């Protein structure tokens, strides 16, 4: 716990009614991570470490809240930087949501808790 650091952000993403919204997760700085999702408070699968993962069709997602929890572990001895970029596709535009935080010690943990509100 002493080494854990936390980052949270809340964002809005405009969807298109007849297109699937897809999530990708890029973990940078040669670090390692795992991601899990909640859609409107219920678990949804995230099958591979980076995606892509279909969240749902635009018309079904308007007014929904996607919570993305990405836990990063520092395995790169060259740096304590961690960075995670969540990318949403299939909406009005493809948007990247980059975030970064340094762990306080080697092999430390960074928790990224990112919320997306889907709008029309």
């Amino acid at each position: 716990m002493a080494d854990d650091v936390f980052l949270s952000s809340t964002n809005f993403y405009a969807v298109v009614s007849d297109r699937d919204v897809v999530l990708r997760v890029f973990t940078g700085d040669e670090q390692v991570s795992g991601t899990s999702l909640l859609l409107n408070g219920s678990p949804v699968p995230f099958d591979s470490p980076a995606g892509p993962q279909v969240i749902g069709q635009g018309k079904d997602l308007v007014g929904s809240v996607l919570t993305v929890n990405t836990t990063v572990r520092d395995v790169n001895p060259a740096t304590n930087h961690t960075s995670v970029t969540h990318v949403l596709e299939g909406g009005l535009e493809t948007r990247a949501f980059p975030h970064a935080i340094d762990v306080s010690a080697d092999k430390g943990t960074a928790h990224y808790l990112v919320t997306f509100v889907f709008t029309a």
Partner: protein
Amino acid sequence: MSVRALRLSTSLPLAIVAACVAQASAQTAGPEAPPAFNTIRTPTSPAFTLLGIEPSSVERPNTPSSLAVALLGRAQERETVPADFALELSPYWLVGHPRLAWRDDETRTIGQSLARTATLSVATGATGTKDVPVTSLAVGGRASVFSGHLAASTTKGLEDLEKALQAESALGLRLMQDQIKALSAQLLAGEISAEEHARLMNALQRAVVGSKAYMESAERKAVEKLMQKFAANREGFFLEVAGAAGWEYPDAVWARHRFGRWGAWATPSYQTPHWSLVGVARYLSKADDAGHEAMDFGLRGTYSSDRYALSLEYVHRGFSGADVPGGHRFVGIAEYGVGDDTWLVASFGRDAATQREGSLIARLGLSFNFSKERFKVD
């Protein structure tokens, strides 16, 4: 990520000679005596090595701003050379690389290898005497031209970590599920702003991750267990190169500088899970007090397992001056683990001139590996 290198027993902090099975007097330290194999490997910090110092405090900035702070802190000393300054940095890692996944580093081009492994080092230190005070400054660089590929065991370790971290993140969401629903409802109803929502989510996660249910969970413990045994190892062909140059400043005055000496190192090697072949080459423009140029080179082959290691090493030293003969050493070393951190070490061979006392190497000893790293991974 830097080059993996097998180093036989170099990190052992304590060695006790238990018995001598043949003539084994202290080695005669003449200038022709070849240096120990590990001392001529490409150094991690060439500037420190050239000055022959091991700074107790090294500044290692990892952002442009921390680099600026480190340099500006010394900029006020304009007339004199700062004493005991040591700085080491990796330019590539001064900035973040948000799209560089660990899978992108399984193999490297020459350019990628140079960029990701390059380090710069700068050091100052007192190198004169009480009567003739001299402060020296050295600047060095190091990089791997080739740095092999990620070991299969490391790739598997990272994939296992990804699965374990996914389970850990799922645990976090399960423990926060009800509060997340409530906060989402408040956000959608316009009762809290996005900024307020993010702040409350952050506080929620801090509380949950700090809880006993999280920290003592099977999911978190599984990650910790994997992290304990994880090591980022690379295998294949490596070529590390380094260079450093040093200047001397009598009375530490900037204006009275003179060139001191320079050195260059190269370490080609080939690593497999059990076998390694390591070559070393080092040039020093002034290797001794008389100012002789020296060229050292050597070769070591090692076979290692969890329980034992066998190695053969050869080191040659040559001087530019005809008045100083060269020398070489050829030694075989066997190590056997007699406990978790205790190793029986036997070495046999010849050192330097065969006519000199102490040229026969024959030793049997115990070594204790408190660091738990049998072979150092750089």
